[in-house]
């Protein structure tokens, strides 16, 4: 056993200092880019808009509201569906939704409503905003 001591001590001397130098670190994903959903051209519900709406809007805007939805999220439309949900709740094609997108709610507050998505939610990248505005302007095809 004693013959092993020098080996252990040399190993410790070589390995412990660099190990301890990097001993504290937490990767929170805070510096990672947001997931981006590709949308076809022209944007349509079935070529990317649905995936985009479900990932970045419908997480909160659903009926009944999800556990992550703010308690004040409106229960008059469900953005996980194009026309209406199976229970009959209007979907993303609802005129109010299209009008709000057209009025620029993806870029800033509109009619007292905050910019969407809310600041803590997965942000839209410029190409996604353009795609949703083009889709809304075309009546939500």
């Amino acid at each position, binding site marked *: 056993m004693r013959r*092993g001591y020098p080996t252990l001590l040399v190993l410790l001397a070589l390995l412990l200092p660099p190990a301890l130098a990097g001993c504290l670190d937490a990767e929170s994903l805070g510096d990672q880019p947001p997931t981006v959903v590709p949308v076809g051209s022209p944007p349509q519900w079935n070529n990317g808009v649905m995936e985009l709406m479900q990932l970045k809007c419908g997480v909160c805007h659903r009926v009944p509201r999800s556990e992550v939805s703010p308690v004040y999220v409106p229960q008059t439309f469900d953005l996980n569906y194009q026309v209406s949900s199976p229970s009959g709740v209007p979907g993303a094609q609802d005129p109010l939704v299209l009008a709000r997108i057209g009025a620029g709610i993806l870029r800033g507050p509109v009619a007292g409503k905050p910019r969407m998505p809310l600041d803590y939610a997965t942000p839209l990248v410029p190409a996604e905003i353009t795609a949703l505005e083009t889709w809304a302007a075309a009546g939500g095809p």
Partner: protein
Amino acid sequence: MARPLARGLAVLLVATLLLIAAPRPSQAVTFLEQIERLRLLAALLLDLRPGQAPLVPKTGQFDATLEVIPTPGFNTQVGGKQEPIDPPPAFPRLRLRYLSADGLMLGVTASPAIEVLHYSAAYAGGELGLRHAFGPLHAELRGFAIAGQLRGPFAQAGARDTLRFANRGADLRAGVPLGALALYGGAGRGSTTTELDVQADGARIKGDNAYSYWLAGAGWASGDWQFTLEQNVSENFLRHVILAASLRW
């Protein structure tokens, strides 16, 4: 016997170093994944890791330990918002263990909700281990459970958001006494259930996650006292240390 032991410890130390040095791939994320990671970081920092060499005592003894766990810095960005999370730079933990001469280890830890720098952590936990000496090699198989809640501003400055967590798991570690020094290493597997209540908007975000961890540590005995430094590596996203001072009687 010495060569296999030295080789085994060398492999463990190199493995720990590789885990620490491994580059992390960039990945696109959603805000739910970012919140989940923050919940996990909090739950794993409060996890009940061994914090002690697995040596079998010659006689039964009690062990009172004060641990200090430094908090690593991290980016608190969630979606497009920098969350106001600013935990204390370190937090203490008291542990009480009984170690029997035949290798049984029983331990408990608990803390009331004492607010420090706008944050408080209340928890209770227990551990049960079985130690055995295989010649010069000491080993312990240990199971643990800990549950509690953190309160403080997580999503909005001045708010009292609540993160509840419940962790349970098991680990195996082995070590060798080298005079007053003891070197040890090990690995474990656990699972955590977390639940975050956001005061400002009433959202409640829950999750269940399993995790693996590896650890390497060194203990130094001096009279009735033992001092321990333990490096923990959890999955590929958390590295933290535990500093412990134990009084035995």
